């Protein structure tokens, strides 16, 4: 897949699901390759369980505003986020959904909706906390942005060695799911 000039992503979920971590990893990886990167948490839930959203933009050209009201790419980790983001994906874009939790989806032809049961996959791994890394792996693979290596580097920097190994495993699981289900 050819490199984009400008890439946009919104990740949404609840506090504790690690949506901010997904955005951090993508942005950090992008910072190695793109001149301009912005990352913005629209809302950071205080308590675990409150809504949390983050946006990432990277580009070869100056980014006027770091905030996004709609995006080419979006990830919804649970229903609240899905209900918001389903209205904010640009035509022709894609929306990745945690289909373990979000079960009621609105059909649309405007953009692609991709269902990935990351909570189930995480449970399979015996690591419920890793649902977000599974999603990250699927997202990297599906979008083709950046490179796996850059994302790994960012993940490694963010977590300790032990946790990185697990995160990488989760990432691979997400990637495999995307590949095996013809999403790429």
């Amino acid at each position, binding site marked *: 897949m050819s490199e984009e000039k400008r890439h946009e992503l919104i990740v949404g979920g*609840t506090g504790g*699901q690690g949506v901010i971590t997904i955005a951090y990893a993508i942005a950090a990886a992008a910072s190695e390759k793109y001149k301009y990167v912005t990352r913005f948490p629209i809302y950071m839930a205080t308590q675990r*369980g409150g809504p949390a959203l983050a946006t990432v933009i990277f580009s070869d050209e100056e980014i006027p505003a770091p905030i996004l009201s709609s995006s080419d790419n979006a990830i919804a980790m*649970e*229903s609240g986020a899905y209900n918001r983001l389903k209205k904010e994906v640009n035509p022709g874009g894609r929306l990745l959904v945690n289909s373990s*939790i979000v079960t009621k989806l609105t059909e649309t032809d405007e953009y692609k909706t991709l269902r990935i049961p990351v*909570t189930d996959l995480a*449970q399979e791994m015996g690591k*419920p906390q890793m*649902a977000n890394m599974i999603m990250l792996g699927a997202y990297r693979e599906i979008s083709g942005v950046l490179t796996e290596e850059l994302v790994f580097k960012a993940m490694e920097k963010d977590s300790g060695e032990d946790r990185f190994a697990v995160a990488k495993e989760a990432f691979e699981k997400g990637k495999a799911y995307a590949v095996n289900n013809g999403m790429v």
Partner: protein
Amino acid sequence: MAVYEVVIDDKRCKGCGICVISCPKDCLEISSNFNQAGYYYPAMVKAEDCTGCGACVKLCPDFAVTVYEPLEETGS
């Protein structure tokens, strides 16, 4: 046979495991089911041991546990 019925409101449950730990009879265990929010809620595993003490109810932070007892049939 189990005298008390312990009901978990899985929508409220956040899977913290407090009820599991605080049960003096180890009647409860976190199950492999999760709710809409992704939390794994507990299930009764030793119903016959339950004394109806209510520790699980009182200590559940999310108002998710209820303990029932049989209705005494008066006049029979």
